[in-house]
């Protein structure tokens, strides 16, 4: 056969490009919607962050470039709030993970009423943050009538004003109470995926419970723990309602969202400055998340 071989590469390229568009198309509605709903406000915020804008005066909003960012650096309250954010997020994520994992391990066995206990345990996650804050503040932490103080006094000690004396700890306690069930669900899912034969082999090899957990179960749980950390962190960074209800914003429990709200809609009225704070928070979060997701975690690994 001396005829020339048909070179299809041009056609193939064309088909691949069309294929590429067919693949992208289903993504577009969600992508466009998200861009519209989140990026437009974001751009506004970015713009406001470059202005001086006070709601309480009749001064017009004026463009001041990066001056807000400059004042941010010197703002001690911002630094304090940032530190509270870090403490609050890290503590609640970590503690929820630990408690949640412990609960999952306890639940991952057969015993009477297992389903019922699991139902009891997930309920805190389903409760509204404002309700959770309210019930802990007025019914658990309350100095006069709270259950915790009642118990403490029964044991012969003096009661404490939890919410005022230990504001950060109080908020963290409520956050952990609410989010442990979420972590528990994720870890339970991970435990379900365990290979029974591997566990049996470990038993035959004489592994202790702790040894089995540390060397077999834990590594297998890692992706689940990472997912829990990611999702938990995303929501726990934004905590606001709890702080409002439990401590009213006492400074040692005032995290960045609360501080920003205080400076804008909460009476501070300096919207330009508050916007700058928000932008800084976003940038910092993106950097941290980038490091976390791409370097440390396998969550974005390609499975093909």
């Amino acid at each position, binding site marked *: *056969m001396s005829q020339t*071989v*048909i*070179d*299809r*590469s041009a*056609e*193939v390229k064309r*088909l*691949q490009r069309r294929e590429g568009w067919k693949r992208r198309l289903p993504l577009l509605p969600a992508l466009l919607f998200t861009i519209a709903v989140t990026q437009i406000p974001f751009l506004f915020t970015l713009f406001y962050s470059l202005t001086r804008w006070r709601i309480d005066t009749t001064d017009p909003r004026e463009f001041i470039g990066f001056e807000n960012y400059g004042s941010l650096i010197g703002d001690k309250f911002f630094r304090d709030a940032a530190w509270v954010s870090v403490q609050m997020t890290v503590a609640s994520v970590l503690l929820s993970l630990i408690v949640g994992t412990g609960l999952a391990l306890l639940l991952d066995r057969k015993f009477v009423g297992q389903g019922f206990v699991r139902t009891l345990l997930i309920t805190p996650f389903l409760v509204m943050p404002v309700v959770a804050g309210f019930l802990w503040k007025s019914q658990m932490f309350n100095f006069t009538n709270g259950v915790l103080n009642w118990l403490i006094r029964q044991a012969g000690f003096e009661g404490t004003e939890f919410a005022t004396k230990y504001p950060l700890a109080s908020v963290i306690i409520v956050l952990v109470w609410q989010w442990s069930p979420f972590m528990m669900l994720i870890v339970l899912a991970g435990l379900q995926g365990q290979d029974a034969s591997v566990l049996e082999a470990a038993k035959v090899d004489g592994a202790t419970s702790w040894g089995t957990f540390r060397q077999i179960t834990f590594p297998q749980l890692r992706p689940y723990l990472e997912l829990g950390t990611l999702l938990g962190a995303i929501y726990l960074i934004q905590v606001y309602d709890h702080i409002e209800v439990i401590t009213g914003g006492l400074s040692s429990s005032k995290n960045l969202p609360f501080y920003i709200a205080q400076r804008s809609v909460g009476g501070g009225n300096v919207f330009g400055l508050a916007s700058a704070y928000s932008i800084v928070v976003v940038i910092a979060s993106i950097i941290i998340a980038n490091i976390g997701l791409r370097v440390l975690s396998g969550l974005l690994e390609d499975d093909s």
Partner: protein
Amino acid sequence: MAEVRYEAASRIYPGSEEPAVNALDLHITDGELLVLVGPSGSGKSTALRMLAGLEYVDKGSIFINDVDVTLKPPQERDIAMVFQNYALYPSMTVGENMGFALKQAKVPKEERRKQVEEAARILDLTPYLDRKPKNLSGGQRQRVAMGRAIVRSPQVFLMDEPLSNLDAKLRVQTRTELADLQARLGTTMVYVTHDQVEAMTMGHRVAVLKDGILQQVDAPRTLYNEPKNRFVAGFIGSPAMNILDVERIDDKLKIGSLDVPLTPMLAHSVSVASTSDFAVGVRPEHLSFTDGGLVGEVVVVEALGSESFIHVRTLHQGGEQLLVVREDGQSAIQRGDQVAVTITGPVHVFGADGERLEA
């Protein structure tokens, strides 16, 4: 019923230098069962997928019944495929799995039911029509995958290692059932496997691929007796053909002290050849233990009952060679015995380029 033609078809994955399938020319006649066989990475699955429309074709063309289907999507080719893992839809019953393609083609319900029941009858699946795949054994799932293909009465069946996931005994049994089924239905079938025994027992013709290049396509017997090159010779046949390094002295080929018996034509080819670089291939059944042959020690005896394969390590000035010798029935030879091996059958001579010289 259809004939299939690959014309210089190539597939080059973006970013890679070598084509996965390189200028494949293959003409499959109507009703033929053609097996594509080769080691991993030989391109056999890729070639099948090019026919299915699951891979692009970068050069050349593919025809089904003289229709150029080269860049048509799978839905438009009227083919059916059986995957290695069966790819059964887990949420549907066996009946629904088998009828799914017909449903997509908008075949009316009654007609669909009839065709599904007919296919189920052929494959002994009638009692399982209402079960879900997860409640079936491996062998049953394999048959459902077959049923799904049969129901469509396609022009071509495409099989991608359909028996690999079955246990050995079931594999042998299903092999013959499959070949029988194809003969009865008379539909053209392109069958991919890495198992050369499967290839040899099932195919009307077998196409051997290596590194994307077609080595040889012939009836099984021809492949066995007249392998075109060293690779095919070593790939086809189990245990593999013994391939030996030989020395050329004058116009003769010698292994140690043993003269390699050459036909007149081979002797002539050897004498006129410019190189001295040859390899000789001898099948295990063409070697025997007689005095005066190549001396060696028995290292392994494979006693299969109906025949025995004896592995002998021979030592000579040329070096060390491991030979496999076949004996009928049950051998008295044992590991450690000192034996002498001679060539008692046809010999294949391969040149430096691996091509077999005409005998």
